[in-house]
């Protein structure tokens, strides 16, 4: 009798232990959540929004699976699929972070390249204006071009400020605007010079 009671108690105790062991892959969940949280930054939202969304969706899918398994009887729980999806979500989150870094670096280098060439373009526009044919009939055009040059220089300064503040799209837009104005000045002066040569 005593042995029987001992055996039954052992069986119940083992059963309770097995029930406790069949639990969610908490460590993997924590790691995935940490990876996704790291990716949820301004930079990633700006430069790799789609990748981040994929990671978040994958994590939601994984957690839904975990919750479904949690709701089953301990003997029938299987967290393999959930673990696989969690790993996939973690990888996607890390990819989003690296994509954002790469895209941000590219945006920065594009802006820097545009800005690096700009002082040269503005200098060429200044030289062109200095050599522009001066006469009563060109003064109005020269005044307009002086305004264009001044606005281009303002855009250059603002572009540098935007670049230093990490606003690369702003910096690139301003640099392109300034370059366009500077190029237009050089072109207009060349046309005016050709017109005069043509008259002669």
């Amino acid at each position, binding site marked *: 009798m005593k042995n*029987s009671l001992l*055996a*039954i108690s052992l*069986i*119940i105790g083992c*059963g*309770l232990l097995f*029930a*406790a062991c069949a*639990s*969610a892959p*908490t460590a993997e*969940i924590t790691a995935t*959540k940490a990876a*996704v*949280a790291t990716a*949820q*930054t*301004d930079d990633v*939202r700006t430069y790799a929004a789609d990748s981040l969304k994929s990671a*978040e969706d994958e*994590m*939601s899918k994984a*957690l*839904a699976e*975990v*919750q479904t398994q*949690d*709701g089953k*009887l*301990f003997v029938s729980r299987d967290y393999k699929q959930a673990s696989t999806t969690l790993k996939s979500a973690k990888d996607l989150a890390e990819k989003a972070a690296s994509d954002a870094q790469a895209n941000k670096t590219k945006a920065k280098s594009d802006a820097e390249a545009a800005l690096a060439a700009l002082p040269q373009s503005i200098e060429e526009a200044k030289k062109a204006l200095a050599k522009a044919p001066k006469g*009563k*009939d*060109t*003064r*109005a*055009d020269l*005044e*307009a071009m002086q*305004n*264009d040059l*001044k*606005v281009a220089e*303002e*855009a250059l300064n603002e572009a540098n400020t935007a670049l230093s503040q990490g*606003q690369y*799209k*702003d910096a690139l*837009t*301003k640099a*392109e*605007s300034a370059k366009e*104005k500077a190029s237009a000045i050089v072109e207009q002066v060349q046309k005016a010079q050709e017109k005069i040569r043509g008259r002669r």
Partner: protein
Amino acid sequence: MAVTGKIRVISVATVLALFALVGICEVRMQLGVRTRPWLLEAYLESSLADCRTGPGAYAFRREYALLAVRADETQRLLVEADHDFWLWRDYADVTARLDSACLDAQLLRLRLALRQREQKVKLAAFLTPLQDELGANNHNGKIWSRFELSHIEQTRARSLADQARSLASMGETESALNHTLRAWAAWRRFNDHSDQAFARFEDEGLRGKWEREATALLSWSSETGRRAILVDKLAHRCLLLNRGKLEKSYPANLGRNWYRQKVQEQDATTPEGQYRIRRMFPSGKYGFALLLDYPNSADRERFEDLKRRGVIYPTARIGGGVEIHGGGRLDSDWTDGCVSLEGADMRDLYRRSSLGMRVTIVGTCRLTSSLQGQ
């Protein structure tokens, strides 16, 4: 026999124990919330991240901070519940808190999305009319809108509007809106400058004076049967009068600052007043030319008065050499103060002109349109 009976009893007891265990687990699952609400947690974290980052998040930083505190508290309770033994672990309370926090996070997200949509609507509402205003041949009802005025604020407004359009196409709504508002400010300053510059054309006193001068010239031409020239600056017209009627009308271009009254040398302004042709040049840099006798006595008197009042420098000079000449460009006002006509028109006017012929230059007058309507 006794042993077989014992084994049978133990087996039955084991099966019953297992069934009891399963029964306990099933009952346990039905009472309270036994599984950790992972999905709700992830949803709350994702919603908070959306409210923390992205365009316009700064505007809701206070609401975000309060929600973040609630989220941290909920996280703490979840960890506490995790440490309970599984048999009496219950997430009911913390799930209720999570539900509430998720709802508020979703509301905040909606407010953020609404703000972003409002910013886009605002951008369209400001940028489209600005582009219309800046567009070529735009007539916004202002007296100067017909003319291509060169001014740095106008150039600045155009440049900022172009940048705004480019940023809007990249999805940078906040930055595009900021540029649009700056462009509007520059455009407004240009408007103010132009309104001030052209205000004199709406001044009743000046308009009356110009009307009288133009009428006097017409009457003189009628009485004497002789030709005279009337230049209407606002209309950009050079009218040849003969015997009190309009003989010819030529489009004209003026000084770069034509809308002002001439004050001194090199101010690129076409003078207003009553003059005569002093000399006639059949050929020159700009083809045919008629030299006017600017400055006349009225001009000198005004010049000295301006010097006395300190409006111009004591060393300023009154200028001269104001002509009606050819070589005209019809696309802009380009001279240093002369009236310029297109080559063939100037040849024609020259042929009909004579030394000493009267030339009256006015800011504007109704006579121009009534003569042209004849």
